[in-house]
């Protein structure tokens, strides 16, 4: 009985996880297209030297989790070792989402300088396997030039 439930969950997770990932990527791509005109740079210096009108600290954060199907894949991967390909999209999605949220926090900015990305794993209280949810934060200084 337990086996059937676990198997059912894996099947369910496979479809829901895939659906969540695809719809998230779709929304990320659509929003990135809109915000690509505003650059986010990791340099401290300004690419454009011009009088600054306003500057403020902005951040965006997101907590994402990996689905059950991928966790099962991960368990198998831990036997043989090697790259865990199924986890890469999770972190990629999180990072892009966090950057988008940072940009959305200052819609009238001309540039974001000194952008930093930070990842921390948030331990799950009722499971041993702790890398199942990850918080990603993106922060930087939004600059608006004098026009």
């Amino acid at each position, binding site marked *: 009985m337990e086996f059937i439930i676990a198997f059912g969950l894996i099947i369910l997770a496979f479809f829901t996880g895939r659906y969540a990932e695809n719809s998230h990527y779709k929304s990320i791509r659509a929003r990135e297209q809109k915000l690509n005109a505003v650059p986010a740079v990791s340099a*401290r210096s300004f690419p454009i030297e011009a009088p600054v009108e306003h500057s*403020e600290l902005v951040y965006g954060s*997101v907590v994402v989790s990996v689905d059950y199907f991928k966790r099962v894949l991960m368990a198998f991967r831990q036997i043989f070792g090697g790259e865990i390909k199924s986890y890469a999209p999770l972190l990629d999605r999180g990072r892009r989402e966090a950057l988008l949220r940072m940009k959305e926090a200052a819609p009238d900015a001309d540039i974001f300088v000194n952008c930093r990305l*930070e990842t921390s794993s948030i331990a799950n209280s009722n*499971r041993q396997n702790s890398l199942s949810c990850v*918080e990603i934060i993106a922060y930087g200084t939004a600059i608006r030039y004098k026009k």
Partner: protein
Amino acid sequence: MILTNLEQVPGKTIVEHYGLVQGSTIRAKHVGRDIMAGFKNIVGGELKGYTELLSESRDEAIRRMMEQATAAGANAVVNVRFSTASITQGAAEILAYGTAVKVQ
């Protein structure tokens, strides 16, 4: 209060330094959110409850840092950094720190 993670405030000059200021908060997740998150852990995707919780905590940490800076007589905090550490299972500390300065 101006916050920035650059070393100086763009368009302004620093006239005085007051040293390091920091603000931190330790938050625990509550049961309702944990149950939802447990469910989300099966299907995958964003855990909105946790995202909200952590961004509320971050705002609180920033607010405490700003309070400390105001008490020192500063009007800006430069070189702000964030850090998150999970201390025990189910609780996270969020820390914001920076250098308090006076700008003109």
